[in-house]
């Protein structure tokens, strides 16, 4: 992987680690941006890791663009040798798949979809060669996902499925974006899933909804009091399919301030993961449930 650098005007340096998505490219971007943060370079104002790229915003009155570029190139090539192990968290996210709210929305915008006769779940199951909605939900929720980028809007995680490339779920975005998406919709576009942190426009296929808030600008939700966004790049997510009564109970718990998400510290080794993906994922799930 040879990182491609470009200036984004006079205040940004944009770095594309690879043009295609992979965990290797994501880890490289994460390591470089951590190194940039640790280097405390004068004039650097924002350090943004993304899926297979990263971006640094700077004040050219404080550091010459060419000097910063040289420094980034050095940090970028030095990180090649970093051992791909990170200390991170695994977070369980309950999901009511095939819920009434995203269903109402996807029907409302049906003429913008590739398949106006079905639902997003039916469509995604078919194009991924899976035998129906239940098989699709199993495929979506059985392996964990990496938070490979946070952004678009406040606190929205992009999630990358931790399975071999040939097993990864892929789906195109809507033909024309919707003007509405329910808050906390679990969506999917390209090879990425996401959770819509706020209600608004969107183009990803809609599969379900989580009762668990992930962004709270008022910081009233117990686990969002320290910071208003739940996710950081590098977090690992495990979906937990739930039914309607469990969804309603979780919403009531959130409203009453009783909801306690399952979040565990874990270390992740890319090498060990690649050696035996299914075994490693079972180990991760064991950490989540304390066995």
């Amino acid at each position, binding site marked *: 992987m040879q990182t491609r650098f470009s200036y984004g005007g006079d205040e940004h340096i944009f770095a594309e680690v690879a043009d295609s998505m992979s965990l290797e490219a994501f880890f490289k971007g994460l390591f470089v941006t951590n190194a940039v943060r640790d280097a405390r370079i004068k004039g650097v104002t924002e350090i943004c890791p993304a899926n297979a790229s990263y971006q640094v915003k700077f004040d050219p009155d404080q550091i010459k663009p060419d000097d910063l570029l040289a420094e980034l190139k050095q940090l970028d090539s030095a990180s090649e040798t970093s051992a791909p192990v990170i200390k991170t968290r695994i977070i369980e996210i309950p999901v009511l798949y095939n819920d009434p709210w995203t269903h109402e929305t996807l029907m409302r915008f049906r003429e913008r979809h590739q398949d106006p006769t079905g639902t997003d779940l039916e469509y995604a199951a078919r194009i991924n060669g899976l035998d129906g909605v239940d098989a699709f939900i199993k495929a979506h929720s059985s392996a964990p996902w990496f938070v490979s980028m*946070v952004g678009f809007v406040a606190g929205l995680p992009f999630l990358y499925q931790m399975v071999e490339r040939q097993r990864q779920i892929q789906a195109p975005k809507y033909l024309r974006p919707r003007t509405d998406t329910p808050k906390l919709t679990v969506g999917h576009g390209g090879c990425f899933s996401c959770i819509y942190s706020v209600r608004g426009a969107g183009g990803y296929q809609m599969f379900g909804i989580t009762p668990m808030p992930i962004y709270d600008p008022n910081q009233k939700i117990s686990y969002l009091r320290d910071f208003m966004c739940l*996710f950081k790049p590098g977090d690992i997510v495990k979906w937990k399919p739930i039914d309607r009564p469990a969804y309603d109970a979780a919403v009531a718990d959130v409203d009453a301030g009783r909801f306690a998400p399952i979040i565990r510290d874990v270390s992740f080794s890319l090498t060990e993961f690649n050696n035996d993906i299914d075994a490693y994922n079972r180990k991760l799930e064991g950490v989540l449930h304390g066995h």
Partner: protein
Amino acid sequence: MAIKVLKPGLATTVQDLGRPGYYHIGIPLSGGMDRHALAAANLLVGNEEGAAVLEAVFMGPELEFTDDTLVAITGAELPPKLDGEPRETWTSFKVKRGQKLSFDFLKQGARGYIAIAGGIDVPLVLGSRSTYALGALGGFKGRKLEAGDELPIGKTSAAVKDGRTVAKNLRGLPAAMPMELRVMPGLYWHRITEAAGIGFFGDTWKVAPEADRIGYRFKGGKPLEFVPREPPFGAGSDPSNITDACYPYGSIQVPGGTEPIVLHRDAVSGGGYFMVGTVIAADMDLIGQLQPNTPVKFVKVAMDEALAARKSRTELLGKLRSALA
């Protein structure tokens, strides 16, 4: 001291100089789209230049004051009226308790900045009072103003006299038509053909109706032709798709190769559309004053020209500070 919102205008929001440091989790800078005009309004009423003001777009609000104070309106030519009597823009004027400030129809530009001595005293959120409406964050209850809102005003730090004005040459407003926006090509420029690149800089574009704090859309130029490729894994099948990446402020994405969108202060922080380059920082304020249908040319510049333009913009602010010191 407070101001009562009698009519909110179209999309009036509380803004200061923004909220840096959270772009990596999708929270954009926000803040005044025309930062120079925002600073000028504050300096006119004796505020710190980054105090919170109201940004009114296309149409002014109607406000009532609960105390005597000093007010200044800068940016767009949005003519103020005090109890129906005309007042000047770019000039501070006194307001008495109970008086009503309203506005005539917009004559020029797009965004007016209404500064009140003491600044708008909404709570600081992540270090700023700016409104990020998409995330319901900051400003007044995280949203644009509504009739019936009551905005707290801070204590004035230093009393300054009324009637001070900003000379025309210090206002930093766009002059020539068509407007020229200077662009450094880059990012995913290599995705389009040489002919498309020439067309992009050669064509005259027009501001589309979809122009807001997130981004300004342009139309009327020739669609861009792409260099053929095998779609990389994760990018999506459309030739304008990329593996979702960060978007610089001022970056120009062209979904489907048809209508360029320049991201502004409330930018979405990333996504899956390729970008042809970035509007230089010195020209970002000007975008905030563009009305729909304004003809615009994108002008190709290199880093040294961008830095020279930045320097002259900083010098203009320096002159403004000296003039109002």
